[in-house]
């Protein structure tokens, strides 16, 4: 029989949600909110930028949501959630004080440490900035360890730009290149119009010593990865955050199978050279 001490030191059962309280709710866009979640007991587990948690609402269901906050600025987990299905829609309706279940963190993270000494190109589309934001925080916390850092952000329209105040704040920094584009706009918009891959040639200055991190709709990532390859960044230095329907989150159930990989444990962050042959297979 395990002693109390050894039981306390064991990692929690990955299938059993821990209870978290919604500490704050911030509406980002019409259908998108950011929740800050605090554990009811104990400390928040450590996490790597790019990892995800399974958020559970009793009676509704469970859904995989990327971590989108800072490791140091919050003692809890920060998640940005868009109302897409039944569970995510219910999560966006939560108010401060509500309690939910949380399993995690799971999956692979962005190669933030491996990118030290390199230029970094971060490309986000739509809600894709949410999983990338913790990587940006880590890079900014150790800014001197990186070369040129460029953040490219694409959205549907000016009204759909996620974390717009923060992007504007980053843009004021002199050590970060922020470029925002939208797919369409009316004449009041003074910024870029066009799809994200068109920004890539202007963002990549030293391709052999650059690392790229991409997150967004899969089609957008495919085209952007092609543009990054065309700009000269080696395929093994381009990382994508993949998305599939995740259930168990530990590589057992097979719901998130992606060719020979399971997105929940082999991903979500994966190097392009490993998954490029699978990306264009329609059945997958």
């Amino acid at each position, binding site marked *: 029989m395990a002693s109390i001490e050894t039981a306390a030191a064991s990692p929690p059962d990955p299938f059993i949600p821990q209870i978290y309280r919604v500490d704050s709710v911030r509406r980002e866009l019409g259908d998108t909110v950011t929740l800050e979640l605090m554990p009811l007991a104990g400390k928040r587990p450590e996490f790597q930028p790019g990892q995800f948690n399974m958020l559970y609402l009793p009676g509704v269901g469970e859904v995989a949501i990327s971590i989108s906050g800072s490791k140091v600025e919050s003692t809890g987990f920060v998640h940005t959630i868009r109302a897409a299905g039944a569970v995510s829609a219910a999560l966006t309706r939560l108010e401060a004080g509500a309690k939910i279940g949380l399993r995690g963190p799971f999956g692979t993270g962005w190669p933030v440490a491996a990118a030290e000494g390199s230029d970094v190109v971060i490309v986000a589309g739509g809600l894709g900035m949410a999983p990338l934001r913790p990587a940006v925080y880590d890079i900014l916390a150790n800014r001197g360890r990186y070369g040129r850092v460029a953040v490219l952000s694409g959205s549907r329209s000016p009204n*759909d730009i996620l974390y717009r105040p923060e992007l504007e704040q980053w843009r004021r920094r002199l050590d970060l290149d922020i470029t925002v584009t939208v797919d*369409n706009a009316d004449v009041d918009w003074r910024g870029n*119009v066009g799809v994200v891959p068109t920004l890539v040639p202007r963002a990549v200055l030293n391709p052999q010593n650059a690392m790229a991190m991409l997150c967004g*709709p899969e089609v957008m990532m495919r085209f952007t990865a092609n543009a990054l390859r065309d700009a000269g960044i080696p395929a093994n230095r381009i990382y994508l955050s993949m998305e599939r329907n995740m259930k168990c989150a530990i590589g057992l159930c097979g719901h998130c199978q992606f060719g020979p990989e399971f997105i929940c444990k082999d991903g979500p962050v994966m190097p392009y050279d490993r998954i490029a042959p699978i990306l264009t297979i329609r059945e997958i």
Partner: protein
Amino acid sequence: MEGLERILRQQRFFAEFPAEQSALIAGCARNHRFAAGQYLFHEGETANEFFLIRHGHVALEIAVPARAPFMFSTLGEGEIVGAAWLIPPYRWTIDARAVETTLALGISATCLREKCEADHHLGYEMMKRFLPVLVNQIHAAQLQILDVYGKH
């Protein structure tokens, strides 16, 4: 003329043209300065000049009745504005508006078409450079049509 040729050769689009061809193109070029909000051209007008942006931004738009114009692309430094000058009947199908003060090289289409007809090597070099611009614009438009950020 020497100044325009030097400016032309500084631009990535024209950088690798042989010197004699650069001189031919520069003979069709002139400098422009567009104020913010000023139109480079309008839909329906004859495409008798295309532009290479030296500084600033240009928005490509389509006017929609009873609505604000639909802006579908912006172009910046080093990019080419306009391809309709290549294809008969040489008429613009969109509007192009300077988003901010914009400096551009304008290349007379009539002048350049005549030189390309007379010198097919020059014409081939021009086509080699314009075709990727057109293909990239088509790819971008295809991705835009997908509306990848919408709810599907």
